[in-house]
């Protein structure tokens, strides 16, 4: 079973993420939800079966950028496919997120179409050898 990490301090946002992911083809996935970066780290520690993470940037305690950096440094999640969905997206932020190894960026509000497009771009990148973690 595909396991997906969903991180946002808003319960509504997490529900939107999950709903969009289900529409985008992950209806049978297991979703691990967390309200901030620190909780996310606790939930995924030692879990090598994660395939994808959807992460917000603006969160209390530990924000999305710090979480992504931490995930990239952990053996179990180093190659995890990461989508950022945030209200803080502009060109400069996109560049910064690419530098830390984010696979796709979506502006909030997100919808299924934007998510499917992002997943397709990620799939193409995987086929060209730029990304290898998504099964």
């Amino acid at each position: 079973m595909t396991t997906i990490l969903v991180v946002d301090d808003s319960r509504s946002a997490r529900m939107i993420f999950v709903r969009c992911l289900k529409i985008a083809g992950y209806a049978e996935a297991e979703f691990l939800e967390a309200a901030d970066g620190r909780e996310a780290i606790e939930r995924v520690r030692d879990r090598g079966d994660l395939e994808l993470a959807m992460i917000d940037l603006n969160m209390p305690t530990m924000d999305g950028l710090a979480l992504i950096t931490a995930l990239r440094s952990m053996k179990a999640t180093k190659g995890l496919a990461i989508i950022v969905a945030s209200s803080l997206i502009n060109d400069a932020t996109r560049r910064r997120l690419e530098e830390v190894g984010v696979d796709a960026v979506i502006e909030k509000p997100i919808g299924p179409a934007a998510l499917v497009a992002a997943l397709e771009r990620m799939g193409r990148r995987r086929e060209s050898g730029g990304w290898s973690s998504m099964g």
Partner: protein
Amino acid sequence: MAGLRWVDALDSAMSETFEGMAFAEVARGVAATASAEPDAQVWACVDVVEPPFGPLVVVVGRAFAARLEETITGAEHGDEGGRLDALGELANALAGRLARRIDPRGERIVLGLPKVGVGAWSGEDALDWVVYVADDRDPIRIGRRR
């Protein structure tokens, strides 16, 4: 920042946010004052720190907030916490869209975490208000510090 400019930016941010999240069409409405029954309202506030804009306040009726939550999350018969959370998330997306329009070439966007509450927004007179109407019936009041 000219007053007209932020309101014009708000128009497109409102349209995109409500269509994208709530599948609702919004249009500028007639001037409205706060409801006579403060508890019939709920509000969300997001501080737009960069670009420097200040707090953006969204006030809607409680019944509309319940419908928004249902549309946004798919949850039926949600609780007050869920309704406020959904409104906060909507305000957050709106603030991001607005920030991009105000300063398209800005180095970064910084938003505060959404704050939400029930009742009238305190400091009503300290804000400039713009009124929108969703689907020709539900007023949405957007406030910004004068």
